[in-house]
């Protein structure tokens, strides 16, 4: 690996971890709500969650550029609060990645929550567990496989994503230049050897992470009947 790519690798890991973490925080309650709500608006919200996926990443990035620019309500608010622009910053990357990968987190979790037992949740309530308590101690363990799927898809997708990230981040070295952009540049630049090396490193690392996740996953028994 060429040394200039090292910060990009590090940044990518930070981005993927932050994004996945945030997605867990946002996606878990959203998925739970979708799994349990009886509102008639549910299909609409489900469709909205999946919608960002439909746009080409660069185009989504373009719209996010419009939405986040310093004169926009969101962008100017962000600027006044943090003193930094939302676009071309790590924060902007994270938000863009979160929006783009949201369905990968929400959908598997929602399915998992829907198929985990109502009877187990009822039992938890009989055992004096308040809803939040029951959620953490029964619904979440019951959805363990769903969490693995959701985390793997979100994490991997954020690693590989570069259209949105390039557009919103502006490819600033050590700030928003992630590894996917670096590999892309090497390929576009005919620097195939570097591209191969970097791809191999990314794939190798990812493979190890995934292998670890899946091997660990085996230890959750499946509980449904």
């Amino acid at each position, binding site marked *: 690996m060429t040394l200039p790519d090292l910060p990009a690798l590090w940044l990518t890991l930070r981005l993927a971890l932050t994004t996945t973490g945030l997605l867990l925080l946002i996606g878990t309650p959203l998925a739970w709500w979708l799994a349990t709500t009886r509102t008639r608006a549910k299909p609409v919200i489900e469709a909205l969650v999946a919608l960002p996926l439909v746009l080409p990443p*660069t185009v989504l990035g*373009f719209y996010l*550029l*419009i939405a*986040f*620019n*310093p*004169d*926009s309500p969101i962008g100017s608010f962000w600027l006044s609060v943090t003193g930094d*622009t939302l*676009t*071309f910053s790590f924060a902007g990357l994270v938000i863009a990645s979160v929006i783009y990968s949201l369905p990968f987190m929400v959908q598997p979790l929602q399915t998992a929550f829907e198929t985990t037992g109502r009877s187990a949740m009822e039992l938890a309530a009989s055992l004096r567990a308040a809803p939040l308590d029951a959620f953490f101690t029964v619904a979440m363990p019951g959805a363990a496989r769903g969490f693995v799927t959701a985390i793997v898809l979100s994490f991997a997708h954020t690693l590989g994503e570069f259209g949105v990230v*390039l*557009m919103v981040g*502006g*490819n*600033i070295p050590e*700030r928003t230049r992630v590894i996917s952009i670096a590999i*892309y*540049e090497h*390929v*576009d*630049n*005919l620097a195939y050897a570097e591209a191969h090396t970097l791809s191999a490193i990314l794939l190798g690392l990812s493979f190890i992470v995934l292998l670890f996740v899946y091997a660990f996953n085996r230890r959750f028994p499946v509980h449904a009947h």
Partner: protein
Amino acid sequence: PAQAQADEATIAVASNFRPVMAELETVFESQTGHDLTVSVGSTGKLYTQIIHGAPYDIFLAADEARPKRLEAESQIVPGTRFTYAIGQLTLWRPEGGEISPEALAAPDLRHVAIANPELAPYGAAATEVIAGLGLTGQLEGKLVRGENIGQAFAFVKTGNAELGFVALSQVLSLEDGERGARWDPPQTLYTPIRQDAVLLKRSADNEAAQAFIAFLRGDDAKAIISGYGYDTP
């Protein structure tokens, strides 16, 4: 069968040249009756595809490096590489008024958009200009790079970067009222952005392709190309 194919050609065009190509295509087709198919992409991508067997007949690159490389790899019909347009770089801001290189030195300037110098000749040219102005250190961390000149333009257009080095052709394609302010760096500050065309080896016998090469060298084409803000050789 050679005759049957001769009426069609597929042109791989660098994405910044696409609006010009659209007009060239219309004129060429009405003049010759040949039928062109246009495939647009970044120069790097198109090059990669070509060396992996893409069914293109002509390659209109956004630089001269990639066509030269194809020539060196004997992927083209010998002697068919030529410069069809020379790109003009401009420093652009959407708001009107005057703009000078000093704007780049303003302390409250947050972001300047350029195309990725690794990938796009306009990006490389922009870095040359910045270096020529002695601003390289000052602008470090403020430069945001688009994958190509189109993205650089989008950064500025959407107000995310206050200024940007874009292609003159892009600014000229805007409506009169939207052209804002621009400063065209002198040619002395950057290597000319030569955009080369080649006829690919597989298409040596393609009449439509040969006809288009001839057309591109002709005055009709040159006039159209100049109209979009390019120099012609």
